[in-house]
């Protein structure tokens, strides 16, 4: 076989490899695997702690999945708080309150860049005291999920950096917040 023929064979091989990667390779990777209804349910109810970020990322990229997910979340909610029609101010930390829960924010007196989020559940379920409280937030940046520790005296709290996206979503008055059952 002459050198040129080797070159041809190599070119064909390389092209075939690229084509394989393009056509089949991405199917196999977990990143691209389809989201099943089962995954939506499991994530909505906080059952897949390991891979929920990955699935949420995919949900946020598809309008259809996002709708399906929000329908499910509302169906399994303890309370749904829609977007608030109020002007927000950067100076005061505005919480929100419904008949069933209250959300308030307070700045750490020592480390000013950190903020405490206090969630009060007025009529808690046994799961809230046992496993903690799961909150889904639908904001302009997409859907995010925050897990609070189990309730003590109907209250639970978490500490966030001010720059944390989850905190910003919780503080965003235009976001709708769903506290899960």
């Amino acid at each position, binding site marked *: *076989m002459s050198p*040129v*023929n080797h070159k*041809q*064979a190599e*070119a*064909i091989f390389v*092209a*075939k490899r690229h*084509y394989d990667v393009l056509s089949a390779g991405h*199917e196999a990777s977990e990143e691209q*695997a*389809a989201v*099943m*209804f*089962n*995954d939506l*349910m*499991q994530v909505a*109810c906080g*059952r*897949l*702690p*390991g*891979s929920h970020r990955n699935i949420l990322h995919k949900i946020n990229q598809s309008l259809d999945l996002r709708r*399906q997910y929000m329908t*499910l979340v509302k*169906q*399994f909610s303890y309370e749904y708080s829609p977007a608030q029609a109020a002007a927000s101010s950067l100076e005061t930390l505005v919480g929100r309150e419904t008949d069933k829960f209250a959300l308030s924010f307070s700045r750490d007196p020592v480390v000013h860049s950190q903020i405490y989020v206090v969630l009060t559940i007025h009529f808690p*379920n046994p*799961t809230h005291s046992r496993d903690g409280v799961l909150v889904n937030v639908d904001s302009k940046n997409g859907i995010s999920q925050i897990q609070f520790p189990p309730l003590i005296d109907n209250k639970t709290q978490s500490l966030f950096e001010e720059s944390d996206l989850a905190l910003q979503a919780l503080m965003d008055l235009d976001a709708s917040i769903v506290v899960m*059952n």
Partner: protein
Amino acid sequence: MVSTVGYGVSETLLSMFDGLRQTTISTSESQGEIKRKFLCADIDRLAQYICCRNYGFLCHELCFLCWAIVRAFPDKEYNEPLFTYFWLTDVASAGGFRRAFANPWQSDQGEVTLQEGVLHIQVGQTPFAISSSRAGVLAGLMEFIVSVDNTQVQHIDHTVSKGGSGDTDTLSKTLQKCLYDFLKHHLPEANEQKRYRYVTDWLNRNGQAPEDINDDDILLFWQQANDDTALSKPSHVRFETAVDDVLNTLQALTLLRIQKASQRAFSQGLDDDLGEVDLSRVMAAPEDSEGEDNLADFVHGALFNDTPEPPQPNLLTLTPKCLTKSQAKRMQPIVKHTPYLRRFCLSLLRLQVFGQWQGVLSQAKRKSAASVKEKMASPPDNGYDRYQQEVLTCAETLAFSRQCLLYALLPHEPKRVLGELIDTLPPLDENHMQRLALQVKGANSPQQQQALVESLAQTWPPLQDALHQLASSYKANNKEGFKTLPDAYVCDAYLEALSEVSKLQGIVQHHLKALNALGENTSQDGKFVADVSIFTARFNQLYGEIHVASES
């Protein structure tokens, strides 16, 4: 064993089953541990039910299960028993199923009890039983249905909550329809699958490999299929159906083989007929200055071998009318079986000649016994030679129409017409060719290009002759679309017709070549006489004496 299992299954459907196999779940019982939701065997069984379209009873079972779930499955946490059962507990296992229905339920609507691993459901007066070993398949089906249409789960919930056994039946039908509508786009039709299966079964029974099938086998298949009295078999009364079925099955088998070969990277390139490319031949390609370009083209072609759309003879009967309706109809089987023009030339010939006669006979049978008798007595005379003549006429018509199309397109697309004409003329020497290429490159507007064609014709007599030929053909053509020269805005129809005519011409030429080759090997007359007696005997059996006697 020869089998067409897997043919025509869409990628979407395959990826759905893959998705089901990989579905994971973490339940409260498993304490956060994540595991596979379904057993592979259950999904395999579900895939079998779905792909064999045998999901009627399964849907029925699922509806009864859902009826039992919304009543007998306790869900204190969310009060959504259906969702909790299918997606938040480990119900895909028999153990999970037994745990879910551990407590019996009873009311005036009916009752649900679990005895020795079997769930007994009484909906009104209708009893139903589901074994715990079905849990996985049913949960898989639910997941599948929701992936197909996620609104179904709300619909199921709503219907079974209110309903008795009548509602369960209606719901089962709705689910079946939902699956049916989905599968229409992702699986071959059930009828088609049945036909493939019949042919592959026949091949297996006779111990024949698909590569060895020849014209006589097709004839034998038709006769044996007609003798087969099984009730559920697809009908093969018409010879045309038998030919279609065998050739379509062979095509399906070929596609399957290629699919498997490309998935598992088997060696390819040995079968020229399938457009495969032999690497050793490529290596020996001439190494000229354009070698790199050729290689790029070749690699592109080999990878993305785009199969052109087959021509549609019917389009050519519209304006501009290039073929008569009967000619277009005649071409239909040839176009349909293009890959087999050479290999099954005789079968196609039989189909065209005796298929037509069979059509006449079956028409006559509807009329009267006497009519059948009369038609039976007049087999297609001089059949094969006359058919060949017909194809020749058709080829001539196509060539004629092509000339007329070119003439009609000349004012609007001179460059294209020139290109088409040059291919048919004696080759120019290289200097001329280069000069011509430069001139054509310089001419941008159709007017400039036309002027160029005219000046070229004056210095190049063969082109002049060709243009005259176009003009005289056009003048002689009185068909729809060729009476007056078309305007620029209807040009597209002519261009499309031109490409259809070119494609069809290629196929007809190929067919003619095969017919000639067939004529060289055997005497057409002898073959025809033998075939007449075979077909007459069979047609007599199908339409003839017995029927005539019983009718009269």
